[in-house]
């Protein structure tokens, strides 16, 4: 009896601690979104209150949408992220297949070479990357960003995907070979559909740093027409520091897509992290 009670007390304490930290984690996000829908006076008078009909105001969003080209920034971010993820998945899966399926001279070495990029950040090569982009006239194009992000995402993608490809049954592939499928058909028709869950995990992992990156947009594509949402809101907020409505609305607009995607993919992501950690 006393043991049951003490375990109940312990569970209670655990809940209290977890709720407390959950508040710490969510409060700033809540504060930003709630205040972005309030009038300027209300933001300052009662920062912690949720918007009520009296204090509700969209003035911040109006300013943001009028002043900054947020739709354009958003499009740029989507294009860069989607194309990079597609390339990382396709090329990463192809390389992972080659490394896990065939034995050839230099296989291990190739794997190590590709794994280098997991630990060494691509940022350190920025000086020469910028020179290369200048030489090829790619500065201020989305292509430059896509190339960099593809290179950045490939190492981890190859690593994770080849782990998964080793689990695809050899019998299935051999059956395909006997049926006369080419190696390409085996890859695209048999193997790729089977590793879709792993591809989703890799996609989420690849997406977060690309969507959130400030460094490369700032350096490679700072022009108005190629700004990503992260850089766009950074500059916009920098200009409007005193317009609190606009700043809070811009922040909320930047949070929103991440929030939606997270709600959709959180299970996938968390499973990916917890499964990947074991290896």
């Amino acid at each position, binding site marked *: 009896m006393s043991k049951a009670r003490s375990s109940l007390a*312990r569970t209670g304490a*655990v809940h209290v601690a*977890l709720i407390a*930290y*959950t508040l*710490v984690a*969510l409060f*700033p*996000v809540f*504060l930003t979104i709630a205040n972005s829908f309030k009038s300027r006076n209300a933001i*300052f008078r009662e920062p*912690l209150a949720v918007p009520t009909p009296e204090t509700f105001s969209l003035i911040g969003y109006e300013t943001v949408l009028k002043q900054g080209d947020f739709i354009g920034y958003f499009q740029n971010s989507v294009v860069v992220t989607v194309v990079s993820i597609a390339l990382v998945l396709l*090329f*990463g899966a*192809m390389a992972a297949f080659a*490394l896990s*399926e065939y034995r*050839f001279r230099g296989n291990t070495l190739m794997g190590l070479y*590709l794994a280098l990029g997991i630990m*060494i*950040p*691509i*940022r*350190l090569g*920025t*000086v*020469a*990357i910028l020179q*290369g982009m200048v030489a090829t006239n790619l500065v201020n194009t989305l292509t430059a960003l896509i*190339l*960099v992000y*593809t*290179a950045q995402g*490939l190492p981890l993608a*190859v690593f994770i995907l080849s782990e998964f490809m080793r689990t695809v049954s050899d019998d299935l*592939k051999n059956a395909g070979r*006997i049926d006369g499928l080419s190696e390409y058909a085996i890859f695209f028709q048999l193997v790729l559909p089977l590793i879709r869950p792993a591809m989703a995990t890799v996609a989420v992992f690849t997406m*977060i740093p690309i*969507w*959130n*990156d*400030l*460094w490369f947009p700032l*350096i490679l594509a700072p022009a108005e027409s190629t700004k990503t949402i992260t850089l766009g*809101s950074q500059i916009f*907020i920098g200009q409007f520091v005193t317009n*609190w409505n606009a*700043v*809070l609305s811009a922040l909320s607009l*930047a*949070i929103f897509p991440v929030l939606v995607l*997270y709600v959709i993919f*959180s299970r996938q*992501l*968390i499973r990916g*992290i*917890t*499964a990947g*950690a*074991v290896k």
Partner: protein
Amino acid sequence: MAGISKPRRRHGRGADECAHFERHRGCATRKPVRTGQRPMNKREIMMDVGELKRPRRWHILVFLTPALLIYTAVMILPLIETLRQSFFNTVDGEYTFVGLGNFNVLFGDPRWAADFWNALRNNVIFFLIHMAVQNPIGIALAAMLSVPKLRFSAFYRTAIFLPTLLSFVIVGFIWKLILSPIWGVAPYLMDLVGLKWLFAPWLGRPDSALIAVSLISVWQYIGIPMMLIYAALLNIPDEVIEAAELDGVTGWSQFWKIKLPLILPAIGIVSILTFVGNFNAFDLIYTVQGALAGPNGSTDILGTLLYRTFFGFQLQLGDRSMGATIATVMFLIILAGVSLYLFVIQRRMRRYQF
């Protein structure tokens, strides 16, 4: 464990070898895999491969080329080129090899050295604060989440991980607003718990700005140690815990004596990820404190120093060679950390396999 994994790998190879010659019709008909009369003898396969002449397997090249090309051209070559440029500089208007000259300037020249050592010191403090705050909180959260049959644990996990997904820009500005004395959210909240007298404009003071920025970064990244350690805790088999309980090891002593040693590898991974991330950090400081990493350089770290040096800022002109030199120093620091982890820590760490 090792006993199981070895033959499995050899089996995998056997199947690979078969794959090569199966495309020769002869092999496939002579020894069809699918008939399943008996499992193929590995020695037979090895002999067959030895006899057959391998055709060029172009598809391997096709599969590997795109990834290798982009990775090499955009990541590896620029990295090497950056390292190379750190040995060159413009002397009397001519671009020449200066050996370790740039490094001498960076470490010893009064115009550079003060900034560099300041940034390096701040970066080390930045990292130490992460290790000291992020790991214990992360372990505590993970330990609480892994309490068996805990309700709402999925919700807690999802919520606590959310900040990790936000961009530095969002996180930086949100905290800048919250800590701002103009808005007064932070003093108001501290008043609620009777600590208002403690409040100060932390981000604006040279002695507290670095700590404040580090803690913002910890707030953002706590999800990663939490998740990795949580996964490690879940992987501890029930039998181990049950055995401990039978021996009377429960509660705190169970955590310290049984679980903590078992999750040390996960803590190692978290630490090296934090190390690489911290010595490569830039975005958060740039967002919160600007490229000058004020007040008075007190939050300047290697990433912001590299940015200012390479691209120039306000009156300072961009300097390609010194930028490459700083990037090289960062590369060496990260390489040293990663090697230390891979070759010393990871090897010495005792791994328990179940």
